């Protein structure tokens, strides 16, 4: 038989009508992966990029060397942040369906990635998020009201009506502006970290990217620059299995883990159960210590699942099995932390329900207040003259003229 070259097209494990199939996912039992010293040379810890760091086992116990031994009070705060993020997302999804905002992106199923990481970092660490990291704002204390006002492009919109919903920023909270173009924030975070090192400051930059957009050149620039200059940065690939309708195999996940890109560039790579709050927290602490002590950057792959559609503009039932998420072997991050707290005797179903109700009420109250500052279609409205501001530090003559022209046009002159 003559051997011939054939185009290989990565297989998608299950499409609508198929039974969910996660046999492709390499898992490690909770507690199995060793925890090396945070200062270990990258070359000796390649196993971290291949295995899966997990702390919570099937009996909801925290086990193994990555157990972060967090105070139950802190775990309860983490649960609260995740639940608030989820309640906010659910509300905004329904509001988008009612036509009051143009667009929304939920982080359903991925809440632990943002919440556990933000809780393991210092408030002075600079965050360069993707558009599915709203939990970062929640942890750092940004009122839900502010996020809602941004989604509404109303008179309290932090973006002054210039950005799509969810493209938040928060200078005071050290959270960078979300672009809307994918992957661009990844190498910018590295530049920020390089500057911190140049200035001799102790702060880290942290950035998130989807496994789909890790295909972009920006991803490779980020890893290369991080490696070359040993920048104090934590780079995260949130592998939620899906880039809109495209399975992660098409982003290069079929043959090698995304975490393994790290050792390929000479930096540490860690693959972590992204739905395990404790594991994400522990890995973040490890990577932060590594960066702060000059041992260099870390690439973290969070293995998780995008439980919702990509955004309000697509219907996930058209490209994957309806019950995919119910069968995802790493479960749901909120349920797992809740069950762990119950197993510790630090939580109960009744307390959980009461918290969910309290947060729903908070979200509903915030929404009521948010719309009092206007909606995209109803007043009070932003002054359209704002479109001419902040293009430059000072408005140049041609924009002054165009603003006057626009005002005359609106006045019917």
């Amino acid at each position, binding site marked *: 038989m003559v051997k011939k070259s054939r185009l290989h097209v990565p297989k998608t494990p299950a499409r609508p009508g198929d039974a969910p199939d996660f046999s492709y996912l390499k898992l490690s039992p909770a507690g199995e992966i060793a925890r090396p010293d945070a200062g270990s040379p990258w070359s000796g810890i390649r196993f971290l990029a291949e295995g899966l760091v997990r702390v919570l086992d099937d009996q909801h116990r925290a086990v193994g060397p990555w157990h972060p031994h967090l105070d139950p009070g802190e775990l309860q705060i983490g649960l609260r942040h995740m639940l608030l993020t989820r309640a906010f997302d659910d509300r905004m999804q329904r509001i988008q369906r009612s036509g009051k905002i143009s667009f929304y992106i939920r982080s359903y199923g991925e809440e632990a990635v943002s919440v556990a990481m933000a809780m393991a970092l210092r408030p002075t660490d600079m965050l360069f998020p993707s558009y599915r990291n709203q939990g970062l704002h929640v942890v750092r204390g940004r009122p839900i009201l502010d996020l809602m006002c941004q989604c509404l492009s109303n008179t309290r919109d932090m973006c002054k009506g210039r950005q799509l919903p969810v*493209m938040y920023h928060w200078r005071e909270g050290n959270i960078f*502006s979300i672009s809307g173009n994918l992957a661009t924030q990844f190498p910018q975070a590295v530049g920020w970290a390089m500057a911190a090192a140049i*200035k001799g400051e102790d702060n880290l930059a942290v950035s998130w990217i989807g496994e789909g957009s890790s295909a972009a050149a920006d991803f490779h620039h980020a890893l290369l620059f991080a490696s070359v200059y040993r920048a104090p940065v934590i780079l995260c690939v949130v592998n939620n299995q899906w880039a809109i309708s495209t399975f992660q195999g098409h982003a290069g996940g079929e043959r090698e883990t995304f975490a393994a890109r790290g050792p390929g560039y000479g930096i540490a790579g860690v693959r972590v159960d992204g739905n395990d709050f404790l594991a994400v927290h522990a890995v973040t602490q490890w990577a932060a210590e590594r960066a702060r002590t000059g041992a260099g950057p870390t690439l973290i792959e969070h293995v998780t699942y995008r439980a919702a559609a990509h955004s309000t503009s697509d219907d996930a039932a058209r490209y994957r099995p309806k019950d995919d998420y119910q069968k995802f072997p790493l479960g749901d991050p909120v349920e797992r932390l809740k069950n762990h707290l119950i197993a510790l005797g630090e939580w109960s179903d009744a307390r959980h329900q009461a918290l969910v109700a309290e947060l729903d009420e908070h979200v509903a109250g915030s929404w009521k207040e948010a719309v009092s500052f206007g909606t995209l279609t109803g007043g009070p409205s932003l002054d359209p003259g704002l479109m001419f501001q902040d293009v*430059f530090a000072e408005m140049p003559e041609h924009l002054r003229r165009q603003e006057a022209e626009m005002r005359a046009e609106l006045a019917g002159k």
Partner: protein
Amino acid sequence: MAQMNMIQALNSAMDIKLGQDPSVVVLGEDVGFFGGVFRVTDGLQRKYGESRVMDTPIAEGGIIAAAIGMAVNGLRPVAEIQFADYIYPGYDQIVSELARIRYRSAGEFKAPVTVRTPCGGGIRGGQTHSQSPEALFAHVAGLRVVMPSNPHDAKGLLIAAIEDDDPVIYFEPKRIYNGPFDGDPAKPAVPWSTHPKGEVPEGHFTVPIGKAEIARSGNDLTIVTYGTMVHVSDAAAKGLGLDAEIIDVRTMVPLDADTICASVARTGRCVIVHEATRFAGFGAELSATLQENCFWNLEAPILRVAGWDTPYPHAFEWEYFPGQARVAKALKAVMEAS
């Protein structure tokens, strides 16, 4: 005052800013130990150290992105893109990110990055070392775009760019790094010491961004041009014995339309000259601006002289280059129109 060529003037600008302001850093391919392929950053790494004058990987997108991140963290990076022809891998980071960070964050974040890049042909660089892509950046809201034509302005504009709170795309016409060039490659090279603009203050000074300069006053017609073409246009006008007023645009964005329009309104005749390709080039914007503002003062149609709408060819460089003959033909046509 000191005699400087453009390379020395640019080097002096960065030297002064690196010395004055610890937040200024320089990064780019070969800019460190070697001092840049055109020697513009020569000696700066020795003087200011490896963490302030950095050699980078060959990744223009990474260079621009890293500069953005540094700027967001309080530095004032000066990024060199080795040739303007190499800038396109960084184009997304410039257009979608650098230009809009202040805007999209409603002024909470800013990115005061200066991107220096040698442009233009006449050095036997072929199609990948000769381009003049200024129009691609002038078209983008949020970028300042400048191109000096002499050492004095090169230094003053670069200091102004580094001190500016907005991103600046800074084009350096490399054919005139070492001396003014009148468009005739057969003539012996002329050093900047022969030109009054080769006299450059040694210390700190700025040339304001957004101001054109009347490089030569005259009454017969106005030539609106920038970069290398200031010198070619001057020679072409002199060759015809014309008393041309030559406006050196210097800054494409924001454009000093007042200075340009005032001159054309007075002379009533105008030729626009640039080295970049003609179609949808920056000359089209100049021509449209002049038509809108000076139509009733015009004695003749405004003509554009530019590079042909082809890639910059290696073997036919001087047939491509808008030299004195092409400029002179347009000058004559505009003068002869009644």
